[in-house]
Structures are given as C-alpha cells and as structure tokens.
C-alpha cells in the first residue's frame, strides 16, 4: 500500500530507536474521580502492546490520550518524540496523519458509504481520485470486504463495520495503529477474523500498535500466532513459540499492575493478576 504522508522527521525519529509512544506519570480524572493515576509506560518501534484490564479501568481513555483526543490533567505523553499536551490542535491534526485508530464501536460515518468512509483521509489530503479508488480497493481487499464498497454502515454487520474501520485506519499506512477493543461485542468466529487481520497487519507491515482488549483469548492469540503469507492465513507459532514483539500492559482501577512480556505475564506471582488471567 502506498504511503500518503511522507515525513522525514517521523522517519528520522523511527530510525533513532526511541519509543514511539511514551506515557510519563500521566493522570486524568473527571468530576473529582481519578480514572488514570500516575501511568507510565513505553511502546517501542515495531512493538504490539496489548492493554488488558477489567471494564472501567481507563483503557479507552488511555487510547484517546495517546492520540491527543484528550489532554491529561498531569504528566506528559510523547508520540513520535513530540509532547502531545504542548501541541496545538493543528499540530495534533498533522501528527494524526501518521496514526490510525480503530474505535470500539467502529465510529464509521453514517452518512457516507464504505468507499467514502475508507477514502475519508485521502480525500481530505486531496489525493488524486483515481489513486484514492485504487487504494480503497486495496485496503478493502486487505480486510476481505471488497464486495461491500457501495454499502452504507447501517447495511453492514458488526464484524463488517469493524473490518471497514480497520481498512479506514490502515489506508494511509500509518506508523502507529491504535485498536480500541476491535473485538468487543463480537461473536468468537468474527473476533478470530478480526484478530487475524490485526496479526496480518502486524506481520506484514510491522507497524507499532496499541491494542485494547478484555478478551484474554484474543490477547494470547496475538502473542502465540503469526501470519503465513504463503498460505494467507494465521497459524500458531511452531514449538509453542511466542511473538517477541508482543508485550502486555494490565490496568486495574486506573493503575498499571503489569508491564512486560507474555512469558512474564503467564509466570506472574501477583495473586490478582493470576486470578485475572486464569
């Protein structure tokens, strides 16, 4: 897929090996209630960071903070090395050209058909209409939904909407993808299809990503599976292998209770964490 926005600064930053996303002592609350408290973590280039935790723990809020949609009450968030709280709204719009986001409920535009939804960013960037059409087809082919190009979101199933949302997020080949519960509310078969797409995106493009889920099986599927490009399907990593670029972050009550690798998570001795993952 061709890239939309070429930014030498971002490319230089990614090549430097510094963390793509960095939360530094971030806190935020609403109406006197602190939702995230002193959260600090880093996401390295090419890493897939899975955010786990019980509902209401501030996971979706964390995602919106990472995209500059909300500003923290205190602390700092750096994305591509730039401090989000210090950026103006126009600077944030420029930064977001390098970030793809898949929302919990897809957030497709009701009044636009699938083609216009997927093409939205390219149309905003005034890309040539012929190229837009080609790239929309390419993105829809990636999520195996070429056939619904003329349909409206209301005519699609929940799983299809989620896949169109993924196509919209990846069309500009972003350097960072934020998945907010991409399998939330879906049946197990559709969830597996979505996870396969996430793994495909991870293994084909090696894009840094943050993924929220409260389905542990999805999280461990990501950690233990890879995409087979020859057979064009997801398969288990041989010899009980684990994807080295996949790491975990567990939130509970607005605090980070775990930040580490898959093995560290499965071998944790923390009683709450053991109970949670079991």
């Amino acid at each position, binding site marked *: 897929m061709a890239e939309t926005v070429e930014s030498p600064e971002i490319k230089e930053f990614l090549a430097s090996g510094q963390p793509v996303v960095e939360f530094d002592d971030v806190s935020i609350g609403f109406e006197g209630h602190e939702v995230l408290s002193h959260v600090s973590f880093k996401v390295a280039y090419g890493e897939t960071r899975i955010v786990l935790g019980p509902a209401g723990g501030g996971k979706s809020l964390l995602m*919106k903070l990472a995209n500059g949609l909300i500003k923290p009450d205190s602390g700092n968030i750096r994305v591509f090395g730039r401090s989000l709280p210090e950026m103006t709204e126009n600077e944030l719009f420029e930064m977001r050209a390098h970030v793809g986001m898949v929302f919990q409920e897809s957030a497709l535009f009701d009044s636009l058909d699938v083609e216009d939804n997927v093409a939205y960013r390219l149309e*905003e960037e005034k890309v040539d209409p012929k190229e837009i059409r080609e790239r929309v087809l390419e993105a829809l082919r990636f999520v195996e939904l070429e056939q619904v190009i003329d349909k409206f979101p209301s005519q699609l199933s929940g799983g299809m909407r989620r896949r169109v949302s993924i196509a919209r997020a990846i069309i500009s080949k972003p350097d960072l993808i934020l998945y907010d519960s991409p399998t939330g509310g879906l049946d197990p078969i559709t969830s597996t299809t979505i996870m396969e797409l996430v793994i495909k995106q991870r293994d084909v493009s090696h894009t840094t990503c943050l993924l929220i889920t409260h389905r542990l099986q999805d999280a461990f599927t990501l950690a233990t599976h890879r995409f087979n490009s020859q057979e064009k399907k997801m398969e288990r990593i041989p010899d009980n292998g684990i994807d080295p670029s996949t790491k975990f972050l567990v939130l509970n009550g607005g605090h980070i209770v775990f930040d580490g690798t898959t093995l560290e998570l499965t071998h944790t001795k923390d009683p709450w964490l053991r109970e949670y993952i079991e």
Partner: protein
Amino acid sequence: MSFISPEAYAKSIVASVQEYSLLCGRSIANIFSRPRYMADIFTQMDSIGVGSLPIVVLTGFFTGCVLALQAAVSLKEFGAVNMTGELVTLSMVKELGPVLTGLMVSGRNASGMASELGSMKVSEQIDAMRALGTDPYRKLVTPRLVATVFMLFFLTIISDACGIAGGAFVSVTLLKLKASTFFHTGYMSLEHGDVVEGLAKPLFSGFIIATIGCYYGLRTTGGTQGVGRSTTQAVVASSVMIILVDFLVTQLMIGIFGR
C-alpha cells in the same frame, strides 16, 4: 436527586459560556482560512434554506392574513381600515417576518443540528473525525453557520413577501379593500431604517441558530437520551436568544434611525 454546590454551578456556567465563545470564535475564524468545505456549505444551504421554505412560506402567509384581520377590527373603530396595508407591511418587515422566520427555522434546524451532531458525538464519529485529521469545527460548524446566516436572510425576505401577500389577500377578499390601496399604503409607510432593521435581524438569528444548535450537539453526552436532551435544550435556548437579541437589535435600530 443530588444538588450541586452554588460554586460548582457558577463554574459550570462560566465554563459553558467559555466553551460557546470558543466555538463561535473558531467557527468565524475558519471562514477566513483554508481548507473550506464548499460542498458541505451548499448541502447545508439546501437542507436549511430550501428545506425550510414550505414552513416559512406558510407561516409568513397566514401571519399576514391574521394580522390584516386583527388590524382591520381595531382600525375600523377609527375609520382607518385603509391603513391595513401600512400596518401589515410595517409589522411584517420590521418584526414578525424576521422573528417568526427565525423561530420556525430554529425549531426545524437548531434541533436538527443538535441531534445530528449529538448522534455523531455519542457514536464517537466526532472523535473519529479528529483522529482522521479533520477539525470538526471547520467541517461541521462553519458550513452550518455560513449556510444558516446566508439562507435565513433570504428566507426572511420571502416570509415578508408572503406575509404582505397574505395581508393583501385578506384585505381584498374579506375586507373589500383595493389591492392598489393596500400595496400603496404599505410601500409608502416603509422607510430605509425599517428595511435595514428587518434585514439585520436574520443575520443575528442565523448566527444564534447555527452556533447554539452545534454547541449543544457537540457537548452531548449520555447516549440517545442525551441526544434528546441536547435537541430540546438547543431549541429552547436558540428561541429565547432570538427574541432577546431581537429586543436588543430593535432598541439599537431605534437609537440609530429614530423609529
């Protein structure tokens, strides 16, 4: 039911005023910078202007009819039924045309804007728009503001014309006045200041309708119930503001033109 402290209530009001002022400021500033969403402006002009035409025409026409009937009853006591045209024309052009058109368009479009943007807000479409690099104020608010101000101006002229036509219809058919007398007295009664006053009011009303509709839409929370609440609040607030601003503009115009 919990009560909030007076301090928290005062703070929330100040915050709302600040939020509304910022929305107004950014929406106006966006007119003078790129990108401009011309297609969205024309779509909104069609929806707000052409879509509101039937209610504006009917409201204007029947208001003129009623005004002529009521005026004739009072004027008859002084033997001045011939002045009906003057009364209807002045009332429609200076006051009833702008205010009633503003209220009708507010009922139809402030609610529409609040519910449309409110639905987008609660379904995260506004956040998605921001995440895709688009400023929602530029894409959603500014086109509605430009379209409402522009179209309300012309809708008011149409309403004035329909009101005068309604008054003429009643005067000729029921009051047995000559059409030429009605239009002549009406025309002769109008002065430059009256027309300016009548045409200045829709500019303010259009601004109020668009900004209040969008403001309540964009601050919607609480799912479908929240959308309903925002819609009601938008119509109530914009209607009250239209009448309040009408009073202030009238006062200002009297100060300027002396009538």
